[in-house]
């Protein structure tokens, strides 16, 4: 064995790479369980690519066949139901894992210098992941698939001058139809590989600057770090075990938990379901989109800009936060803002789930008002974080010199 590895290493330094980047890669000794979600995201990505590849072997992208072929996978293909439920629920769990991963980065200041490029790769991954999830949801060609695609692609028509033509170009017709379904399938196949490639760049950027840690200070590699293997391989495996218990519980016992019943009705371009809801992971952004409804003819464009801005603002987060301290543990004001932000995301999700016009809170509070407030709080987080750090309003508590 060692002879073979010697032969290989003389031509490609595999052993040296594994040693420096995996087994002996220096990792902070104080990482807590919130640091499990990065490797968990990679684990879910592998589940998604594997189940997706085998689903693609049975799937047909055709407006007349796709709905039936998904039911064929469910009923006739051996373990087809398992592949599909793994894939459909895997998407939801992917977002759970990634949202926790992002919030961990926001709380412990992992986006701060020198990790800006690492953070940008992450935000880009998140954006592509949203696009991939959206196009995947169109493939079963049910009512929610169709009308979700119709509403989201119609957002493009808000772009001045070129909007209408752009939408026709994306559709490949005059409405969402067979050409749209086909190109979405092709892109849904391609993008996960792009995500995989970007994840490698994300890891490269991580290994160039090394992990942040719960204290948020720069560490001494000799004193404060331990080799990744076996300490974090075993911890990550443990996290995967816990994840799999929850994931399998949903896949095997409540597989339709995250799915809309209306998507078991074949797509009908002539009739819109009474209540369209996006997948839960888009709800906060959907609520932001709908909450800009007070600008008359500019509402539509402004709503789209606000929705895109809600994600784009993450790109400049490293420059908004001017505090000398990374970790929010030692930043009382930032910490309070952070938790308000987290609660606000849930609030916006709830707003997005309910019909825009009808629901009121005990009849007294129109939902649009809640939506607008939630949107203001969402953007307010980023503005206030800048204000309290740029103007030295926040007084941080003592930060430990070492761990």
């Amino acid at each position: 064995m060692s002879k073979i590895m010697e032969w290989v290493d003389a031509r490609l330094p595999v052993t040296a790479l594994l040693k420096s980047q995996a087994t002996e890669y220096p990792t902070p000794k104080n990482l807590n369980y919130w640091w499990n979600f990065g490797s968990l995201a990679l684990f879910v990505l592998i589940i998604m690519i594997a189940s997706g590849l085998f689903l693609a072997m049975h799937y047909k992208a055709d407006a007349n066949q796709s709905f039936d072929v998904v039911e064929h996978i469910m009923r006739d293909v051996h373990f087809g139901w398992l592949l599909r439920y793994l894939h459909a629920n895997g998407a939801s769990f992917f977002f759970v894992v990634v949202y926790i991963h992002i919030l961990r980065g926001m709380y412990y200041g992992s986006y701060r210098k020198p990790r800006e490029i690492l953070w940008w790769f992450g935000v880009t991954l998140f954006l592509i992941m949203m696009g991939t999830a959206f196009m995947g949801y169109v493939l079963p060609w049910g009512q929610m698939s169709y009308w979700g695609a119709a509403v989201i692609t119609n957002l493009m028509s808000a772009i001045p001058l070129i909007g209408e033509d752009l939408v026709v170009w994306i559709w490949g017709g005059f409405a969402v139809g067979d050409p749209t379904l086909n190109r979405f399938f092709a892109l849904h196949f391609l993008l996960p590989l792009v995500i995989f490639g970007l994840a490698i760049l994300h890891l490269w950027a991580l290994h160039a600057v090394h992990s942040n840690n719960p204290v948020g200070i720069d560490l001494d590699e000799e004193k404060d770090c331990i080799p990744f293997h076996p300490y974090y391989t075993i911890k990550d495996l443990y996290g995967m075990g816990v994840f799999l218990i929850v994931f399998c519980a949903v896949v095997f016992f409540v597989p339709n938990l995250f799915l809309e019943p209306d998507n078991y009705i074949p797509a009908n371009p002539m009739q819109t379901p009474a209540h369209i809801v996006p997948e839960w992971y888009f709800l906060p952004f959907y609520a932001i989109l709908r909450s800009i409804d007070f600008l008359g003819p500019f509402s539509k464009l402004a709503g789209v800009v606000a929705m895109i801005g809600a994600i784009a603002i993450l790109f400049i987060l490293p420059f908004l936060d001017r505090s000398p301290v990374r970790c929010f543990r030692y930043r009382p004001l930032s910490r309070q803002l952070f938790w308000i932000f987290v609660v606000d995301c849930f609030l916006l999700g709830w707003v997005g789930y309910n019909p825009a016009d009808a629901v009121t809170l005990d009849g007294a509070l129109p939902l649009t008002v809640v939506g607008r407030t939630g949107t203001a709080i969402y953007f307010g987080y980023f503005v206030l974080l800048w204000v309290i750090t740029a103007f030295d309003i926040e007084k941080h508590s003592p930060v430990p010199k070492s761990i």
Partner: protein
Amino acid sequence: MVTESEEGRRDFLLLATSAVGAAGVAGAAWPFIKSWSPSSDVLSQATTEVDISSLAEGQMITVPWQGKPVFVVHRTVTQIELARKDDTKSLPDPAKDADRVKRPEFLVLLALCPHLGCVPQPIGTGNYGGFLCPCHGSHYDTSGRIRQGPSPRNLQVPYYEFKDEKTLVIGKATV
């Protein structure tokens, strides 16, 4: 040793090569981009013929045109009067009923809400006697004009003509 004039020459060559390369890539990308536009067979389905002889007063049908739903409404006298009466009201997207129909009894509308493309419910479901979009609560009157809700515009009237007394042709053949 590279002289100054040689350096300038090399800079120029590098720039020129890059420019030609970029133009070539842009040109080569065009067929790929254009392949997403509606194909010839999609364009050839640009018109839909509808037999309206059996459409009684007060009835409404939904017909597919270019994959999109189109409402053809045989309006009642009351509905026509209501639409004309509201011509003078202050409307978000002002339009006269007479300009939105070729024959007052037949209202032809693209049944896609200009807000985000949902299909409104049939005539009589909304306030103002017209159409209600269920997605985000836009109300259209008996002429398909926006009266209330988030939609910025009236329901669009597609191009159509009456081929004869009983045949309606929606759309224009495109090349």
